[in-house]
């Protein structure tokens, strides 16, 4: 019931937004048009990035065995896990937003909390396409220093936070189960 309330509120926001956009374009209301163009740009970016990512998530779901993930990214897997998630994050497109469902799938297959935290951090600091952009505009010295400083910070904070959550018996929400209810 709570979920239903949530969805209807969201629907109202979305519908209102589109009415506002339609009005703005019709009346040539500049702020509205600017917001509309922003929205279109972001939407296009997500529409182009998300479908292949979710196809990969689907393939990951059916092909990759839980034991494999537990062995390399699970509780007993050791420090090499953090290397793997940086490799995994390196070619990622689109930033944190598409990263969340990937991290969630990894966790569902047995990756420990520390590992998915470091994975999210790796998406933030170590995506190769972004490194090219960054070094083009800010110089390779900047990129090099930032990467060298960021990587240990991301790993340490992921381990510390993950351990804390584990000690408290933290469980991630069941997204797929929740969405079935509606």
């Amino acid at each position, binding site marked *: 019931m709570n979920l239903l309330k949530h969805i209807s509120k*969201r629907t109202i926001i*979305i519908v209102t*937004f589109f009415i506002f956009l339609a009005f703005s374009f019709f009346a040539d209301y500049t702020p509205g048009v*600017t*917001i*509309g163009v*922003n929205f279109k740009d*972001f939407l296009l970016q*997500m529409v182009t*990035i*998300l*479908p*292949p*990512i*979710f*196809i*990969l*998530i*689907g*393939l990951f*779901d*059916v*092909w990759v065995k839980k034991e494999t993930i537990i062995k390399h990214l699970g509780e007993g897997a050791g420090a090499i896990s953090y290397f793997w998630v940086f490799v995994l994050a390196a*070619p*990622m*497109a*689109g*930033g*944190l*937003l598409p990263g*969340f*469902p990937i*991290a*969630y799938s990894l966790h569902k297959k047995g990756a420990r*909390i520390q590992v*998915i*935290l470091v994975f999210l*951090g790796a998406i933030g*600091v170590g*995506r190769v396409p*972004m490194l090219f*952009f*960054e070094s083009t*505009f*800010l*110089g390779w010295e*900047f990129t090099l*220093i*930032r990467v060298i*400083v*960021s990587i240990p*910070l991301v790993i340490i*904070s992921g381990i510390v*936070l993950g351990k*804390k959550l584990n000690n408290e018996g*933290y469980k*991630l*929400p069941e*997204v*797929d189960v929740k969405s079935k209810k509606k």
Partner: protein
Amino acid sequence: MYFIYVLSVVAVIISFIADRKKTKKAIKIGAKKLWNITPPFISILIAVSVVLFLVPNSVIVEYLGGSDSYFGVVIATLVGSITVMPGPISYPLCGILLNKGVSYSVIAAFSSSLMLVGVLTFPVEKAYFGKKFALLRNALSFVIALIIALVFSLVSGTLI
């Protein structure tokens, strides 16, 4: 970005050759997961496009331009945390800031928090990982951005 397309197409072809049924199932699973997450994604895109209108590049340049102090770093981290920008927009903006004489530490604070902290994406993060996880991860990432900025203020002039 093309990489992800090449990768998924190749993966689907290999998967299809190996097992048709499994591949169909995989695509169904992917499509269903994408469908489930679409409404929250749309609301976030709405929030992002409104915030980017309220905080346009010119305002960011004005606020961060010239500020060189610790105060500037904190402001930059806050701005980076609440805005969401794709790399092709944010890095040219960082280049503009650099040309305006903004210090490396302020730019590092801005770009790092932009990439690590997501105030606008918080609802999606919360849906996947729970409130506590999302809250603490973002708070820690905020601190990480500050530390990166601090390192840059220490090394600027010598290493960069």
